[in-house]
């Protein structure tokens, strides 16, 4: 199915946020996730289902003022 990851279209067979992260090679990474604008805590990523057209944001630490 097609979802939007960090604003870009992404083809995936993964069913959960955790699985998508794994696909992205970010499973080990220090990141935070939000699905359709709602924060998804790390603990809930395995059980959080991703559906067609969902927007997933994967954010990591960055410089800031």
């Amino acid at each position: 199915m097609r979802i939007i990851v960090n604003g870009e279209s992404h083809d995936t067979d993964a069913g959960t946020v955790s699985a998508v992260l794994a696909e992205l090679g970010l499973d080990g990474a220090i990141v935070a996730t939000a699905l359709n604008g709602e924060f998804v805590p790390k603990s809930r990523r395995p059980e959080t289902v991703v559906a067609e057209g969902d927007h997933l944001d994967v954010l990591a630490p960055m410089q800031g003022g």
Partner: protein
Amino acid sequence: MVTFYGVELGSRLILGTARYPSPAMLVEAIRASGAEVVTVSLRRESGGERAGQAFWSLIASLGVRVLPNTAGCRTVKEAVTTAQMAREVFDTTWIKLEVIGEDDTLQPDVFGLVDAARILTAEGFDVFPYTTEDLVVADRLIDAGCRVLMPWGAPIGSGKGLNNPFGLRALRAHFPDIPLVVDAGIGLPSHAAHAMELGYDAVLLNTAVAEASDPVRMAAAFAKAVDAGAIAYAAGPMEPRDMAMPSTPLAGMAVLS
């Protein structure tokens, strides 16, 4: 010594981590500034670059406390979700709350700011709101649970200094017991010293250091200026006089003409 949400800090300078010529320069500048708190942000990570991972290991190695921001957020929801994500990633309840209301001056949206502050304090965050010098907004933020206020000196990145010293002075006078931090707009050490001389508890800056020709030396300069202003405030400055007074006593002067 200044205390934010129960955490005592020796340094009154909070340094931003953006816009440095290089990561190495950033690290040196943080060290030179003596800052015990640096601001950080969250951005989208791609599996390829993993830029965030590299940045984070750099910061983590410095042993400084981080203050994540919600920079660029324009709505309460964006700011709240960003704060929630930041808490997990950075493992801190501290959040520099920015709800930007206007693109050119990057001024706070004080309405969204108060709403977001209320939500976040209810969720257990320690909120550092980027606000204006407005006394009534300050009241609302304190009602919302904020125990630190961060009024702007001038627009973010402008380097103009303190656009409204009267307003900043009034804010200090009306909230003697709340830690106040001038956040944004400072361009020179004299601006930072001035803020501290007004009785402010700390200063937060980024561009003035990052965009100096020599960020590391500039960081050291700001460290000294912030100390200077804080010490001066505690030491009780003289009252300015409109007419001149001789600093050398005239009694016993010779008459040689």
